[in-house]
């Protein structure tokens, strides 16, 4: 059987890749995908821990996170579409009408 630490290591790696991606990517959809990657890394942690503990609480949490991620995707893509309609660009650096 694969030990717990491997799962946790993999999810930490995925989470880091997602977090780094949020900062270095410039396309709104790519950033959003990186965020989804972070959420799924968390899901992996929860499932691994939950089966390690033999406790259903963690798996329940995964269902909730997946639902929330789906709702967030719906709203996020709608926002991204409305910004694309007004600007014809998804580059977050060009979204600068509010001064920094």
């Amino acid at each position, binding site marked *: 059987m694969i030990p717990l630490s491997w799962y946790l290591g993999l999810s930490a790696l995925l*989470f880091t890749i997602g977090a780094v991606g949020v900062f270095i990517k410039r396309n709104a959809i790519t950033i959003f995908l990186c965020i989804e990657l972070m959420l799924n890394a968390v899901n992996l942690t*929860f499932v691994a821990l939950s089966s390690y503990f033999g406790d259903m609480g963690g798996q329940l949490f995964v269902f909730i996170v997946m639902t929330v991620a789906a709702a967030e995707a719906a709203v996020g893509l709608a*926002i991204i579409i409305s910004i694309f309609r007004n600007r014809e660009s998804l580059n977050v650096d060009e979204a600068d009408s*509010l001064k920094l």
Partner: protein
Amino acid sequence: MLALIQATNDLKTIGDQVVQLIMPEVILTLFACAALVLDVMLPRGRKRPVAWLSLAGVGFALVSLGFLYFNITSEGKSRLGFFNMIVIDNYAVVFKLIFLIGAGLSILLSIRYLDEEGEQRGEYYSLILFSVVGMMFMASGVDLLTLFISLELMAISVYILVGYTKRDRRSNEASMKYFLLGAFSSGVLLYGISMIYGLTGSTNLANIAKALPIIISPAYEPLGQTVDLRYLVLMSMILMAAGMFFKVAAVPFHMWAPDAYEGAPTSTTAFMSVAVKAASFAMFGRLFLYGLPDLRDTLAGNADKNIPGLPGWAVLLGVIAAITIVWGNLAALTQNNTKRLLAYSSISHAGYTMLGLIAANETGYTGFILYLFIYTLMNLGVFGCIIALRRHGIQGDRMEDLNGLMKKAPWLTVMMTIFLLSLGGIPPTAGFIGKLYLFAGLIETGNPWLVRLAILAVLMSAVSLYYYIRFIRAMYIEPETEMQPVKLAPSLQTALAVAVLLVMLIGVYPQPLLRLTQKAAQAQGLKTHDYDQKKADEGEIERPPGAGTGR
């Protein structure tokens, strides 16, 4: 829910005992759905009844909250429900009151503003109601699962509200920035939650609080060998704190706030600057005072084995609060857009509010809740005045738009002045009472670092007067730059009058509100902590080792 029915096997018991606990939320949800349906039934351009319906929903929720208070919590008792997932205690009830007042006033502020923007549609009001449902569960959730899902319910509704004027480029942009950073911060928060679940094996805050003292001992021996889990515990605490700092807009996680506040429709800015902030603080308090009280102070090391003690979250919060107060106030000095300026001012207010959590005595907790209550009223008031300036062809969010307001709308100017002085903390307004309790709480601890923090906060709140007085100067002294008259809609007048009366009333006669917030601060599970406990015998006051004593 299915398991619940199997467990009790008696629907009537559920109806009588458990659903009662979430009755305000149930009412709000029903009204939010009804608002969506009514919106479709009404013809285009005649959507105002939806606003009145939502307002009625808020009113009914207030009534049912009153029943909860008098039936259950007024004596300081609390009740757990839904498999220990939510709790109804005075802390939850007072926060729910704050959200409902904030939502009610925001709806009143919005009605005319949305007409002006040409965006009067029903879903705006139902989104406000849905986000309030989320907030209310944030205040009463005692399980990480409940807290997370209610946080997201609130956040997702507010993302849409920020991008509500979808033809406005600034609103789009604000909404995208808020959404991307908000989703990122919930990811970070969630990773912290998953780590604490892995460490304690539970998502229930009470169980976590029980398990933590065992885990954070440096000689924890789960399987026969010693492991030091303190670094992991600290890391999960920091991740959760970072997620919460994002939500309350504390420096250095504040960059979304000025953009989101400036770009969002002003009525949404008003709502999110008060209710969302109060809700995030409610969750912050639950998470840290209820779930992680043992991480507040230094995590004891072991001098014999050369294991160092590690700092707890009091230090983290103290540093963040200091940076937030200083940076928020300094950055506000140079702003020319009023919404952006108020965004920085609200960042600094988040810093002040955090002081109450750090102080960890009853005065501090009272100040924490009291200040959020008062801040809701005064900040909504200021934004209400800015909404009043939005009229045909004038955006109303530049500093110049305030010029010569005294001649155009004297009453509006007087109300705005009261709100601004209250934000600056000048007696006899409510803001003074709130700040007094926050700073007194810090000074009562007797810890020299915390006293220095209080002095810094007082100094910076003097700095904040500079930019509040800039508003007043523009209104009273500057000559008018445009001649368009300012007319207040009746709903806006009502909201402003209620806010200004409450601000003055609390400033002059705060006792009833104080009693209420003191009850909330005494809620079971909010552990107070004495920073001074070892001063007498060790002669050393700074961060004495050893976990805090619960009340």
